[in-house]
């Protein structure tokens, strides 16, 4: 087992414990030992976050642990990785893709959408989270202004599904449908509805949403 593999195991435990200080110290030590910041990200941070995502999928850990782990990684990025990348003038950490997320108009439920946002972030995606009760026109306008790759829509209520259809109509109307992959999830949606709308995919859970985005960006 290589040294970085051992470090990754330690880093995972530190993330699960939510210890930002230890995480920053460990990252600094490893980089001072000659490891490139991008290598540390790819071989320690990414697999640790992937493991945390898997554990959340089976509820071996819960949302508080995942939120804490994401916060710790943000701290490590801000205090260690980003400054090191800037100092070395090497290539930065490559984003896995940019995703716009929104709960559609009429629906104020956000826990499921928030889980997807968090899981996408821990898996290296850049996320533009528009929140809840977002109109179709705003979704389309922000997708354009933010130059996202993927539009993700969520709804818990069947009475909000027509607003999802409106998003496709707006995209068709602006002749920009082919510029984005559009995915959907939430209790009111089904694979059949997704297919009927001409979406690029449907996810039942946060983990499925991440897998879907990874497949789209591959």
């Amino acid at each position, binding site marked *: 087992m290589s040294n970085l593999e051992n470090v990754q195991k330690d880093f995972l435990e530190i993330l699960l414990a939510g210890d930002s200080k230890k995480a920053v110290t460990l990252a600094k030590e490893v980089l001072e030992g000659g490891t490139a910041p991008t290598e540390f990200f790819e071989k320690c941070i990414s697999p640790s976050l992937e493991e945390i995502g898997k554990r*959340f*999928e089976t*509820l071996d850990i*819960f*949302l*508080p642990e995942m*939120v804490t782990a994401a916060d710790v990684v943000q701290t490590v990025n801000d205090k260690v990785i980003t400054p090191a990348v800037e100092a070395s003038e090497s290539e930065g950490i490559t984003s896995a893709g940019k995703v716009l997320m929104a709960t559609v*108009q*009429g*629906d*104020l*439920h*956000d*826990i499921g959408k928030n*889980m997807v946002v968090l899981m996408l972030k821990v898996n290296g995606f850049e996320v533009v989270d528009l929140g*809840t009760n977002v109109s179709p026109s705003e979704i389309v306008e922000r997708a354009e202004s933010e130059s996202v790759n993927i539009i993700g829509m969520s709804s818990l*209520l*069947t*009475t*909000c*599904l*027509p*607003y999802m*259809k409106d998003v496709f109509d707006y995209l068709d109307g602006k002749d920009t449908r082919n510029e984005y992959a559009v995915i959907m999830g939430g*209790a*009111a949606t*089904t694979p059949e509805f997704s297919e009927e709308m001409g979406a690029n995919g449907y996810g*039942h*859970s*946060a983990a*499925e949403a991440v897998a879907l985005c990874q497949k789209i960006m591959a």
Partner: protein
Amino acid sequence: MRTRGRLHSVLDKAETGPIVEEREFDIEYIQKPIQALIKKYDVKWDKDVFLTADDDLADRVYQAGYELALNTGVYCTSTKRRMVWTKAELDEVIATSPSSVIMGEGDDLAHIQARRPDEDSRVAVCGGAYGIPVPENLFVPVMLSYAQEPLLDFIDNCSLVSTYGRPIRAGSPWESVACWQEVDLSFEVVNRAGRPGMAIGCAENSPTHIGEISSNSIGGFRPSDWHHAALVSELKTNYDQLIKVAHFARTGSHIHTFANNIYGGYPGGADGMAVALVASLILLQATYFGCTVNPGPTHANLSCDTFPAMLPGIGVALQGLNRNTDLMTTAFARTAGGPGTKNVLYEAGALALVGVTSGIALMEGVQSAVGVQQAHCTGLEARFTAQVTHAAEKLTREQAAPIVKALTEKYKGGMTTENRPIGKPFDQLYDVDKVVPLPEWQGMYEEVCQEFEKEFGLTL
């Protein structure tokens, strides 16, 4: 007059409470305090027990939940403010909450009465499709399959997939049109069932306030029906819900309130969920001053509330509430399994045993296949739930616990996001014209009834 004063006080809180960012509320007022309260009140139990019978633990969970309610309050997403209650206010809410209610009209009254754990008094039962989407042509036969069941004291509606062939848009005029269609179809159902005064859980096509308010007026749903207001997870309200409550308060309508604490979400596991659940029910009563209060809750990935590890959390929270307050608490079966499977019966049965012995006043359900599969709902699973409910009235928590454990063994294999046993839609399980179960579904139901008698000694 008291109701009006309470309403004004609640609305004032939504407009004068401290401004807080929503993420800060989630982390600093939900996640962190719950984890601290779990430690402070030593909230834990043996993981092999699916129904606890420890009164001291139940009281500690209640104290933890009360403290969360007092220190956190409710977040109003419309005003970005934290609505807070003083200890004196919360104590008054609890002391003045109704402990009994009569639903319905005429000869079709349903009595609901607060209970204590292990009490052998009667539990009321509401059966229905609870918002499961159903095509317009199936609304009447689906709901008739519930209304005709004599063990169901009243019903809760399914929702419509469309209204007069058009999609129902939340917050649009179509929401009002759909709710008025729901009124017409509901009255046809209760009249055909010969129970015209039966209370109806409504309006199930009203995601915003528009449908509820328009259809709760002259010629529409009655004050004696069962009107809904909810807290959004975790501990959040908004103007849509508060507008409904302002209307209910003026019209004197019965209000059923519910929350949906997320197992695996910000409260964490079943211990944190139990604390959040107590806080939710106290705050539901403080915010909406209804008659019946339901905790949900919801599994983060499966969306059901019958996941085995959730059951002791639901049970201990209900025990804490029913030992320390006179709130009319309810349990609501939202099963992973759907109609036409044994799983739906095992799951609903387990939750009924947990709820009834933990002191609920009302058993609700079944939202089969977690309520998202079109027309996956029948009156037969509600009949079964009512049968188990009344059988459980005679049991204590200690007597029910091994039965609950045995039932979780039977259904835990179906607790997966893949290949969930969703069963079949109504028109494949019932004769739609005669509104009777087809032999396959009837036979499966009878087999499970026999299992309950042979294996658990419960005659249904």
